[in-house]
């Protein structure tokens, strides 16, 4: 039987792929998807710990994080639509009006 630590390592790996994705991509939608990947990776960690301790709290946090991810997605995509209307682009490289 494979140990919890494998799950945790996988989760850390996915989390870091998410971080790198956020930092190097410039399409706002893809960046947002990378954030979703990070949240997913955390969910895996939480569920692993929850399974290890056999207590349900971690799973509840995952449940809430799912709901919040949904809310975040709704708002985030609305913002992306708004900025697309202004810029006709979702390239964050072009979004540099506000600096310093």
């Amino acid at each position: 039987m494979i140990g919890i630590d494998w799950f945790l390592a996988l989760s850390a790996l996915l989390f870091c792929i998410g971080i790198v994705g956020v930092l190097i991509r410039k399409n706002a939608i893809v960046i947002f998807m990378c954030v979703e990947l990070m949240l997913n990776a955390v969910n895996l960690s939480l569920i692993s710990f929850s399974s290890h301790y056999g207590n349900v709290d971690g799973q509840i946090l995952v449940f809430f994080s799912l709901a919040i991810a949904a809310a975040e997605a709704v708002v985030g995509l609305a913002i992306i639509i708004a900025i697309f209307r202004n810029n006709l682009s979702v390239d964050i490289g072009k979004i540099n009006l506000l600096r310093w």
Partner: protein
Amino acid sequence: MITYFFIFLAVLAVASALMMVISKNTVNSALFLVLNMMSLAGLFLLLQAQFLAIIQVLVYAGAIMVLFLFVIMLLNVDEETSLFSKLRVKYFVAFLLGVGVFAQILYSLGSFSDTLPTISSEMAQAGTVEAIGDVLFSKYILPFHIIAMLLTAAMNGAIMIAQHKVRTEGNK
């Protein structure tokens, strides 16, 4: 058996995550993310969290990602000619940061792995819909309601932001 499942799903998850990050086409990226979420749902099942595995498929893969795809199609985002930002330095920093965080997390997990190797036996009961529903409506009733309010708020706010026209006072 579980070990083989884990290896299969883990490889699938990592591969799809990487593909999502490097794929040129935004739609492809989104589809790879769906695949990643499905494989995570499989891993949840291995961890005996049945309820969340189902929710993961329903909410994440089913609802959130559909919304993403919908927006991508709606905006008709072109394929990106230059995939990443041009600054090579930024790459370097990003990878360094990513590897750094990864190493750190692994290192801290290392301190943990001697103490807990396996899935608890109580998990068979704890992962079910009944068990989760039970605490959700007793212990976690307040967060549950706040989340309900938040979903309403998010819907409302999204409509306001995404609306095309600015409504002037009273629409007169």
